[in-house]
């Protein structure tokens, strides 16, 4: 019989971490009626990997606030959808800390005067950093109130100088299996892409965020640079952006490719248009009321109808969901 040295294990036999984790999760769940998970550490209270928390300054107080109670920092940084770091809500916080955020450059391409690349440091010089407190509504029926730090995407668009042909903006996330364990599993068609109509992208509410709670973004929240579009479902807020492309025709986004029946291009928060999986009429505010946290009514355009309603006048929002 042939005995292999340990080093002879072909790479194909080494289980990718995300797959292994999924398996382990299954075994954990199935094993002896969940007996193994009595320990609090194994459950909901996830510890964030030591990542450097860096204060951002100066920050000016931007327009468009809300006086609603902020979602605690702990929850904003441990309850995330970021499939590049795993599909469970606590996976990103557990697996993050691996992103190499400097140097970080963003490629500006497509219908622009001149394609160019911009380093994160230079990007930060385009406009003063503002704090914007926005509601964030996830398509899964939960919401948060988050004090973002960033500046209007419009400032970057001005700098990018799109041509007259540009009608849409497409965003591309980093998809590096070395830094993002979830990308090793073809759960979505990597890299993650998103898109906005140019007028949506230029809207003063649309934010290019680099931080929250006064500090630089942690990996699980989409470090170092992400999009925040508060009147749309959370998945439009693409994370860890490495590319911005100006295009003439409406881009097809990752979630549209994954399930066109469920996810449309616009993805505006709309309590009247249901998602096949979740009712969109109500939502649960994270971090309030514990077990007795009651659902609240979801507002049209997530409560930003006054600011953005006119972008969609005359459009059938059932058709363009």
């Amino acid at each position: 019989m042939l005995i292999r040295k340990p080093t002879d294990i072909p790479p194909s036999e080494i289980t990718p971490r995300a797959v292994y984790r999924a398996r382990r999760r299954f075994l954990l769940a199935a094993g002896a009626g969940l007996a193994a998970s009595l320990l609090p550490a194994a459950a909901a209270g996830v510890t964030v990997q030591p990542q450097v928390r860096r204060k951002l300054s100066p920050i000016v107080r931007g327009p468009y606030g809300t006086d609603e109670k902020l979602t605690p920092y702990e929850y904003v940084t441990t309850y995330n959808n970021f499939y590049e770091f795993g599909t469970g809500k606590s996976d990103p916080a557990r697996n993050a800390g691996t992103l190499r955020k400097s140097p970080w450059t963003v490629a500006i391409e497509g219908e622009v005067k001149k394609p160019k690349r911009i380093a994160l440091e230079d990007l930060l010089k385009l406009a003063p950093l503002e704090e914007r407190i926005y509601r964030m509504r996830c398509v899964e029926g939960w919401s948060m109130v988050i004090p973002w730090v960033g500046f209007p995407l419009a400032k970057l668009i001005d700098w990018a100088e799109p041509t007259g042909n540009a009608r849409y903006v497409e965003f591309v996330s980093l998809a590096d299996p070395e830094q993002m364990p979830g990308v090793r599993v073809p759960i979505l068609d990597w890299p993650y892409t998103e898109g906005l109509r140019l007028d949506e992208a230029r809207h003063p509410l649309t934010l290019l965020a680099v931080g929250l709670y006064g500090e630089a973004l942690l990996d699980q929240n989409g470090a170092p640079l992400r999009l925040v579009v508060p009147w749309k479902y959370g998945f439009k807020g693409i994370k860890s952006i490495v590319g911005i492309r100006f295009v003439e025709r409406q881009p097809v986004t990752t979630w549209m490719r994954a399930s066109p029946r469920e996810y449309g291009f616009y993805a505006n928060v709309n309590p009247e248009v249901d998602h096949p999986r979740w009712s969109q009429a109500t939502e649960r505010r994270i971090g309030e009321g514990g077990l007795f946290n009651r659902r609240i009514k979801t507002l049209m355009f997530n409560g930003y109808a006054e600011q953005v309603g006119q972008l969609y006048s005359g459009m059938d929002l059932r058709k363009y969901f």
Partner: protein
Amino acid sequence: MLPAKIALNWLRYLKGVVFLLALLPLARLLVLGVLDRLGANPVEFVLRSNGTSALTLLLATLAITPLQRWSGAGWLLALRRMLGLFAFFYAVLHVLSYVWLDQWFDWHAIAQDVMEHRYLLVGLLAFLLLIPLALTSTDGMMRRLGNRWRPLHRLVYLAGGLGVVHYLWLVKKDLTLPLAYGVVLGLLLAARLYPARRRSDVMPS
């Protein structure tokens, strides 16, 4: 291999241990709840935990018969009813967490939610199927139903299948876990069908 027979007091201990093990998921929720460690979305956490426990215990229940047939350990059957009732117990807690914690007895919203979302309809069907099975699990009912008890209780496979479909349809993209449950259910069903045909004449059970 499992021993064909065990002493009665051992069986009693074993049942006690399985009883306590089956209570662990609930104990865990209580401990985490008291410590305020149910996470960012406690309602979802409790709802999902109970759903997972229900399905896991349902599969554990279904594993007893094939295990018993292969090993000849008849005493295993003494655990089957308890496991099945625990599966039902967690299904009740699961549905209760939905109706109470998630929807706050808003029957209008619940009706709409269930009608519009197929995963809920299938879950409801699975739950409705489990009710007559739980009600007819007593010795008295077994006797009264006689020959009809077995075919009735085969419905548990259907309930398991609907539970898996419920799970498959509710996850957004990562189908790993529901598929794993589905594979286990399929294997258990296959294990059940295969030896039954060959042995039924030798070993009426």
